[in-house]
């Protein structure tokens, strides 16, 4: 990844991180605010409920007091104190009182706790009223479970005694605590109130009431109600009504206790979380928008900044690539005085030094090459020159000292001279040939054919040296390549010749071909004494030879041919085991 891309990425991530952090912070703050508002609303509704509860309780107390003070109750109390045994005439009294006082429940109960008359369940006369013992002392209203012929219900009750005689007559009156009660509450928008009448041992969905009667979706609220029923403590929960995340409601559950602190009801204040969720969605949308725009701006800015910042670096990298490619004249502009400017200046300085150093090296190498050439030429030429000098001196000496032998000496001398001159010509010819290496004339060429051709040339020579065995590993599927068959023939001949020279004591020569991906490979192996590492590294240097009478041009010619074909040559050698030369040539011409 380029420095510019990294810089771009860092800028984008930074902006993204900032947007996410800010959005999360905003969202968190808003949610806390919303939850706080929810709590406030729930507390307000709960407070209102308690206030209404208290108000209605006071109202019930007032009505029950009025009922207890009514003429009919006083009369009944008086009759009871006078020993009236037949309570049959009182059966309808409670209902009359209930109508008069606008109460849902009224019961007349004697001092023994026996119901004399019941408005809510007329047939209940003669049965005990279980609430009497605990309710007698209560000044205010209290919650009570009331049994009816149709089932149980919850009511807000008060009890008062008719103060006539020694045997009190109790009036227990009350109002239903149901959806009618809920409808009197002033519920804020987005909030609703449910009431669970805890009248059964187990969860009863029909006992969960809203303003219209049994509430729908009661089963989802059941766990919250159960928790409050078990613990008797307030609790909160969020209810998901559907797959729509906005269709959720947070509930605040408040236990409603009876005189003995038993949970008789649970008030549930529900606040829709839709506004919160929609706000959340808006925040997320805004965050995405801001984030997107921010990232876009960041990208553009970072592009500009990156371009501005990385331009010297890119120039430097380009110059470095040119230097790596051998262009030691590469220079960068020094446009600033900062670290990058210093780096560019240093780079220019470095390339200048490298260039000077290379020129010095080239000059030294050139001198060395010339010296080597001169040494080689001197060496090559000195060998034939010495016989020439001796032969000429013999001829001179024979002319002066033994003219009679001169003719014979002259014949022998001229023959020697001609040989040495030919030898000189051969040497000069090789140098000339190396200097005039032709460019390859490419044609479709089968390397296997080249190998066969070379081996045929050396067939006679190898038969003379019967201790050398030749083995071929030619790939029959080897594809043709575009190459100059004659030059490859010359190169392979040099390798085979070197292999033969490497086996003075005999051995095995392997000539093979194979396909290696997009290239074909030609290799020649011998089982000779091998080469040292240093010898391997210098093998392809012109005029370097390990032979007694070599010119050092053979492998240089091979490398030249291979290089002209776009291939490469390598050598692997293990001392006392042998040497392998590998020529890798591209299938297609380059």
């Amino acid at each position: 990844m380029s420095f510019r891309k990294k810089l771009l990425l860092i800028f984008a991530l930074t902006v993204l991180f900032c947007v996410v952090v800010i959005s999360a912070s905003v969202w968190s703050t808003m949610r806390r605010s919303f939850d706080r508002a929810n709590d406030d609303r729930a507390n307000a509704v709960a407070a209102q409920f308690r206030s209404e509860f208290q108000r209605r309780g006071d109202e019930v107390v007032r009505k029950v007091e009025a009922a207890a003070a009514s003429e009919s109750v006083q009369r009944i109390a008086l009759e009871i104190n006078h020993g009236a045994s037949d309570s049959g005439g009182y059966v309808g009294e409670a209902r009359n009182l209930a109508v008069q006082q606008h109460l849902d429940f009224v019961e007349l109960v004697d001092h023994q706790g026996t119901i004399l008359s019941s408005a809510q369940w007329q047939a209940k006369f003669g049965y005990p009223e279980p609430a009497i013992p605990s309710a007698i002392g209560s000044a205010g209203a209290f919650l009570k479970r009331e049994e009816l012929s149709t089932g149980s219900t919850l009511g807000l009750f008060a009890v008062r005694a008719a103060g006539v005689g020694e045997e009190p007559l109790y009036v227990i009156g009350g109002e239903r605590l149901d959806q009618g009660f809920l409808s009197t509450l002033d519920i804020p928008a987005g909030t609703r109130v449910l009431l669970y009448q805890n009248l059964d041992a187990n969860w009863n969905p029909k006992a969960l009431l809203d303003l219209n009667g049994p509430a729908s979706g009661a089963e989802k609220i059941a766990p919250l109600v159960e928790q409050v029923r078990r613990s008797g403590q307030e609790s909160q929960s969020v209810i998901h009504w559907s797959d729509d995340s906005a269709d959720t409601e947070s509930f605040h559950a408040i236990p409603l206790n009876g005189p003995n602190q038993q949970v008789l009801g649970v008030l549930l204040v529900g606040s829709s979380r839709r506004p919160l969720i929609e706000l959340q969605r808006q925040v997320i949308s805004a965050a995405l928008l801001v984030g997107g725009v921010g990232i876009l701006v960041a990208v553009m800015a970072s592009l500009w900044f990156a371009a501005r910042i990385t331009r010297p670096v890119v120039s430097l990298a380009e110059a470095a690539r040119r230097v790596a490619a051998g262009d030691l004249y590469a220079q960068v502009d020094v446009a600033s005085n900062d670290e990058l400017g210093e780096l560019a200046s240093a780079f220019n300085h470095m390339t200048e030094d490298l260039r000077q150093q290379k020129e010095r090296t080239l000059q030294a190498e050139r001198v060395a090459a010339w010296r080597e050439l001169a040494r080689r030429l001197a060496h090559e030429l000195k060998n034939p020159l010495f016989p020439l000098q001796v032969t000429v001196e013999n001829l001179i000496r024979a002319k002066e000292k033994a003219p009679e032998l001169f003719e014979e000496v002259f014949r022998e001398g001229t023959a020697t001279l001609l040989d040495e001159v030919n030898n000189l010509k051969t040497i000069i010819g090789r140098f000339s040939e190396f200097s005039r290496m032709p460019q390859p004339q490419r044609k479709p060429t089968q390397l296997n054919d080249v190998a066969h051709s070379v081996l045929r040339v050396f067939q006679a020579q190898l038969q003379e040296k019967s201790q050398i065995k030749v083995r071929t590993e030619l790939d029959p599927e080897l594809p043709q390549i575009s190459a100059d068959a004659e030059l490859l023939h010359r190169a392979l001949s040099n390798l085979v010749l070197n292999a033969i020279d490497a086996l003075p004591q005999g051995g095995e020569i392997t000539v093979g071909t194979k396909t290696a991906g997009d290239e074909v490979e030609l290799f020649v192996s011998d089982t000779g004494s091998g080469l040292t590492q240093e010898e391997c590294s210098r093998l392809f240097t012109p005029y370097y030879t390990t032979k007694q009478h070599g010119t050092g041009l053979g492998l240089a010619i091979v490398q030249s041919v291979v290089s002209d074909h776009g291939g490469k040559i390598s050598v692997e050698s293990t001392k006392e085991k042998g040497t392998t030369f590998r020529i890798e040539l591209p299938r297609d011409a380059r």
Partner: protein
Amino acid sequence: MRRIAFLLFAAVSLLSVAGGETRPRYGGTLRVMMQARLDSLELSTNGTPGDYWDAARVQSMIADTLVSIDIAGRPQPGLALAWQSDTNGRRWSFTIRRGVKFHDGSVASAAVIAQIMGERHADWTVRGTGDALTIESESSLASLLAELALPRNAIVKKNSGGSPIGTGPFRVADFQPGKTLKLIANEDSWAGRPFVDAVEIELGRSLREQDIALALGKADLVEASPQPPALNNSSQRVRTSLPVELMALVFPANSKAQDLRVREALALVIDRKPIQSVLLKGAGEPTASILPNWMTGYSVAFPTQANLQRAKVVLADSRQPTLTLGYDPRDPQAQLISERIALNAREAGITLQVSLSGVADVNLVRIALPSADPATSLREAARALGLQQPLIQGNSLDDLYSAERGLLDLHTTIPLIHLPVASAAGGRVHNWQPGRAGDWNVSEVRLEADSR
């Protein structure tokens, strides 16, 4: 002499003044109100006991039966003056009262009566010749006289318009089904012309409406709640019959309470006394038998005390389904009584839901006991309660007891209360002597002269 004549005149004058209130006086229209909304003048078996009594009272004004049964269960002559049967009770011979005419002037001969009775009872062979009427049956007709005394066996035929034509003290002048019935005195009644000229009956009036009408002087004879006199308006004359109705719980054949133990437990757990003393304001008698004690004298052998512990023991291992308890909404006390029964049942763990909808598992019913003859009333009650006809082996009380016990052993019927019927007459009515079995005896009633 003149002095004696004067004294005689004065005595006669005083007697005439003093006897002005008691001397039989003919004329006037007796204004009657009834709860029953009679659509026809035939006896219906589908109505409430109130409907039955009202229809029977109307029937008794229009028609006569061959015999009647007094409060002691003894047969009294009606259209038949005398009777006798063979030893096994399969053949009965009656001597028909001579000179009796139907309202249309035709003679109520033995042959006509035989035709009417034969059409009603296909299993009887009824013949009439001269003033002799014979009734034969393949089975014993031991209670034939009580059967013949039932209102449904009154001798009545219909005219072309479908109106009943009987031999009774009144004949139908106008009938608006469900609204009014006007009867006028039968001048040729064999028992003598009734004192009043006519009887106007307003139908379908509630007890409250009747009570108000009586208090305002707009009615002379009405039905009343069978509550003790102390709770009634003291200015009115209320006459209460002996208990001639039975309030009971009846389990229909398809009831969910198929387990005998559930039914027995329910019978044990019901506390009848508060129902009678409070809800029925002391009217009637708690009972666990079908027939009232005044008929049989043995109803104490059927204990009425609630026994909750025993009920719980009986129910111990039984499955207790939720049962629905139905009642007749026309009966003003039925709902409250049903709720009380449900409350009692709940103590034993039996769930009874009082309901008016659908087919109930147990019904609170009220039936009439139409005859002072216990065997006949037991048969009629069994028919009305949907029970099998009782097997009364003989004429002894033991036989009757065994038959009644047999009816109640399965607890498919739980008797609760025996109830009387009550009527009230206004101040204009004189010589009103209603029967103890709920009949009105309107033919003997005289009306005070209208002062208006």
